[in-house]
């Protein structure tokens, strides 16, 4: 019954709604974006074909490069912390004792809450006069006057925002690392024990090499996530000072929506999509290989 022309037709009928949906709400916008990027397109006037002018403009747009460089720096700042921190947490909690399980569960809680909401939480914690971070640092004598964490200095803002995002997402890497570490065959670890290696050598010589693929995978997920950062910067600094903390997605948002330069926004989106695509393809190749 499931075979022959009728089976094919029935199968296709089951598939059609999802396929139509993706064509309408993902594929069509993608094509539209490519088309828009070749036009001077705003909601206010009819679109005008301009060829590659939007792309040329992007390459000579200082603010675009500032935001692109800032996004890369943010990714470079946060990724090592997430990987090393997440791995150390995984080493700490990989064995299944009650306390370790509880710790894993706790570390994972912030992963399930929204990035926008966690940014609002940290926006308060890092507030100069009303936030608990300054209060605690003052009480501990680490600082002698309140620090202006957000929106005044780009570097200080990045550090504060990175701290909040590390808190929010570190459990994600940890959980994947725990799974990878638990999958290391026990006889391999025991053989190392018989050879009399220390605990730390066991980690660096046995566990780490055997879980390297997961490390790479989490690195890519983190890099892609950081390159798409928006919520935390929109909420915590609003791009200040002088749009120095506006990420790539933020800059696209500014051009497309408040400024309604939709054609230019589309060209910037294309550049972003291609950048992300490179990392995604590496990620997919990596995960496909790990299945074989």
């Amino acid at each position: 019954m499931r075979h022959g022309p009728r089976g094919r037709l029935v199968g296709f009928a089951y598939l059609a709604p999802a396929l139509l949906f993706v064509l309408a709400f993902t594929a069509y916008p993608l094509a539209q974006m490519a088309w828009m990027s070749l036009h001077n397109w705003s909601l206010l006037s009819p679109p005008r074909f301009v060829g590659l002018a939007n792309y040329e403009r992007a390459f000579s747009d200082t603010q675009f490069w500032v935001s692109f460089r800032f996004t890369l720096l943010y990714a470079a700042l946060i990724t090592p912390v997430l990987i090393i921190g997440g791995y150390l947490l995984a080493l700490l909690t990989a064995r299944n004792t009650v306390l370790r399980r509880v710790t894993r569960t706790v570390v994972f809680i912030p992963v399930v809450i929204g990035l926008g909401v966690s940014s609002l939480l940290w926006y308060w914690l890092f507030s100069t006069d009303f936030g608990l971070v300054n209060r605690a640092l003052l009480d501990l004598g680490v600082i002698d006057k309140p620090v202006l964490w957000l929106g005044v200095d780009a570097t200080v803002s990045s550090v504060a925002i990175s701290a909040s995002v590390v808190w929010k997402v570190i459990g994600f890497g940890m959980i994947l690392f725990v799974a990878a570490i638990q999958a290391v065959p026990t006889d391999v670890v025991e053989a190392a024990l018989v050879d009399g290696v220390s605990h730390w050598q066991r980690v660096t010589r046995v566990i780490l090499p055997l879980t390297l693929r997961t490390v790479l995978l989490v690195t890519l997920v983190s890099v892609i996530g950081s390159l798409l950062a928006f919520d935390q910067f929109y909420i915590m600094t609003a791009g200040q000072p002088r749009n120095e903390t506006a990420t790539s997605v933020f800059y696209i948002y500014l051009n497309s929506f408040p400024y309604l330069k939709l054609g230019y926004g589309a060209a910037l989106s294309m550049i972003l999509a291609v950048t992300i695509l490179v990392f995604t393809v590496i990620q997919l190749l990596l995960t496909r290989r790990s299945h074989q």
Partner: protein
Amino acid sequence: MKGRGKYLVAAACLVVCTVMLMPLAMSILASVKPTEEAAASPPTYFPHGLSFDSYARLWSYQEGLPVYLANSLGTALLAIVLALLLTVPAAYALARFPIPGKEVIFVVLLLALIIPYQALLTPMFLMFAKIGLTNSLVGLAILHTAIQLPFSLYVLRNSFSAIPRELEEAAIMDGSSSWEALRWVFIPSAVPAIVTTALFAFITSWNEFLGALVMMSRSSTFTLPLILATSRTETSLGGTDWGMLQAGVTISIIPCVLVYFLLQRYYVSGLMSGAIK
């Protein structure tokens, strides 16, 4: 592990748990401070009195909390229903039917994995503006479904593929149609996967911020994160209402944490299958 090491691990676990829980605890505590204390500078660590004034102010903030809660919940439920209606049959087709070009179709369906939705918002906004889907919960739910669809499809297809063929063959022998096989064999056998995908659709939609920011401009259509983000700069008292903001943060966090605790097993395994595609 011997003596000292055991205590070190225990101490490290306790420190980690404290650090991770502290911000959440502080937010909850700030939300129950009396109005004056919540606006104090420097802030207090622990509330000196217990008060739900911040929640009361949030309740009647602008259109009122019930409107924003209804918008967030409504969008999330629509997104769950839409995602299931689309992906359950599609996953069934991909798992069991001989469709020509199936591999290509599967890749097209997973397109949103390769193209981040953040990059697609400009054309989607234009399209939604044309067909009247901006400032609409249905529009936002469609966007959230588009984000979530590849994950759901992937998880469901794997789950359907793992169902033994003998089960459905028995159903076919009894003269069931393919629809009946789906209804009585496949769906009941894939409940964990269906729960997982519904759960993730809920969390994605409930938490999503940028899409809502782009699509919703009328404050009566705002979702919870959106109105809270707006409230951080717009207040009647001349400064941010920190108590109300943290009340909003607390309310936003509750459903996510509840879902996580109730369905932790599904959650973590779902995450694994999502990350390791």
